[in-house]
């Protein structure tokens, strides 16, 4: 367990108390990653800053062009939000496969992104949605495309003390799908996962967002496959061809969960399934 936990009531209070805190410090959101790591033994000199009840981080807000998802919104609250259901189809498709119901009552997208795991279902879906991440350090804000936050397994571009405020998802009408391969269908970390969003007009793909989970050192934005899909008619033939392209973009390894070759092959299969599942919806 950490040495101490502080619980600032607001962001302003967080930045005020920060300089006086012990130098070894981390943010605590839902706890579903860092407490697990800590129960296995963590640095007891650490100070945790509990940001899970800061109101600014718990909002879901719509502007004219985007939807803001606060970093500390619980996954189960995202699932219940009408705005999220409308504007984040890939994220909504991923949520049933995201851990278990009780962990979804605790976990947050901010915690997921900060943890930097390439397997995170919510993050993979958000990358496919074309989300940006909003960051703040002592009152100074910046914004990054979410796909650029990740540098390697558990490595992010976050500076010391920099806090994830939330995510902005563009409000563009699109279809979304999430396909996950794991040892059992629910409550299991993926061997491979594919998140897809498609903006379609007259049966033709205008813009695609493709993200791959568990097959690269980071939640991977499949830029080449997405670019190739733009301008194509959505069909089973297109889906099969896209499957061939995405396999070259994946960069999997062999580990306890699966083997590199199998993961690469299954990326293609999962993308094809995701695209085919959207064909009947494309005309609506």
């Amino acid at each position, binding site marked *: *367990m*950490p*040495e*101490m*936990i*502080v*619980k*600032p*009531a607001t962001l302003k*209070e967080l930045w005020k*108390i920060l300089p*006086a*805190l012990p130098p070894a410090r981390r943010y*605590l959101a*839902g*706890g*579903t990653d860092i*407490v*697990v790591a800590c*129960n296995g033994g963590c640095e007891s000199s650490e100070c*945790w800053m*509990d940001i*899970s*009840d800061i109101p600014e981080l718990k909002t879901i807000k719509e502007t004219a062009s985007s939807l803001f998802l606060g970093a500390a919104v619980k996954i*189960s609250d995202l699932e219940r939000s009408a705005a999220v259901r409308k504007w984040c189809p890939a994220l909504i498709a991923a949520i*049933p496969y995201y*851990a*278990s*119901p*009780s*962990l979804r*009552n*605790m976990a947050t997208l901010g915690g997921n992104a900060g943890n930097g795991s390439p397997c995170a279902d919510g993050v993979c879906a958000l990358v496919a949605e074309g989300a940006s991440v909003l960051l703040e350090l002592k009152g100074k804000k910046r914004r990054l495309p979410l796909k650029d936050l990740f540098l390697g397994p558990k490595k992010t571009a976050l500076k010391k003390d920099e806090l994830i405020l939330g995510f902005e998802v563009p409000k563009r009408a699109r279809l979304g799908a999430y396909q996950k391969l794991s040892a059992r269908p*629910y*409550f299991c970390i993926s061997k491979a996962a594919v998140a897809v969003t498609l903006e379609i007009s007259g049966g033709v793909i205008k813009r695609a967002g493709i993200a791959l989970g568990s097959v690269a050192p980071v939640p991977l934005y499949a830029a080449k496959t997405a670019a190739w899909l733009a301008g194509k008619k959505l069909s089973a033939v297109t889906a099969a061809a896209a499957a061939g392209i995405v396999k070259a973009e994946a960069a999997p390894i062999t580990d306890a969960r699966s083997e590199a070759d199998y993961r690469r092959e299954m990326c293609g299969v999962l993308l094809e399934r995701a695209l085919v599942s959207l064909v009947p919806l494309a005309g609506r």
Partner: protein
Amino acid sequence: MKQLENTFKLACLVNGKRTELEIDSSRSLLDLIREDLGLKGTKEGCGEGECGACMVLVDGRAVNSCLMMAVQVHGKEMVTIEGIKGKDGGLHPLQKTFIAEGAVQCGFCTPGLIIASEALLRRNPKATLEEIKLELTGNLCRCTGYEKVLSAVEKARGKK
């Protein structure tokens, strides 16, 4: 935030009772429940959020208390298995059906299963068998008595 020292003044509702106590700020929620509050019905199984033996309700939702810190229930309402009762103060309908169906074997997972099932039936009193199965994905029973658990939850639907 009122402290830079290592203690925290915690105030929350526990099983309907207003509870205030000064705790070590790094106390885990499970230790608060079992050691400080003496409510031993909540169990520690895996300590990793996999098994659900430690589930309690916080603001009406099932959570894994082994992965929460005590400070995270500040200002909230918590219900442990000791707070699950029928309207007459006796056994809750889920507790009755668990007994009637023989859904309890060693009993270690039972508090968590009741909590998870109660959270579901509050939200969705007519939950289907499939919805019950999905809701209980985070509860492991190593005696493997799942069928009887499922029928106990089905039989508790609509009972108050």
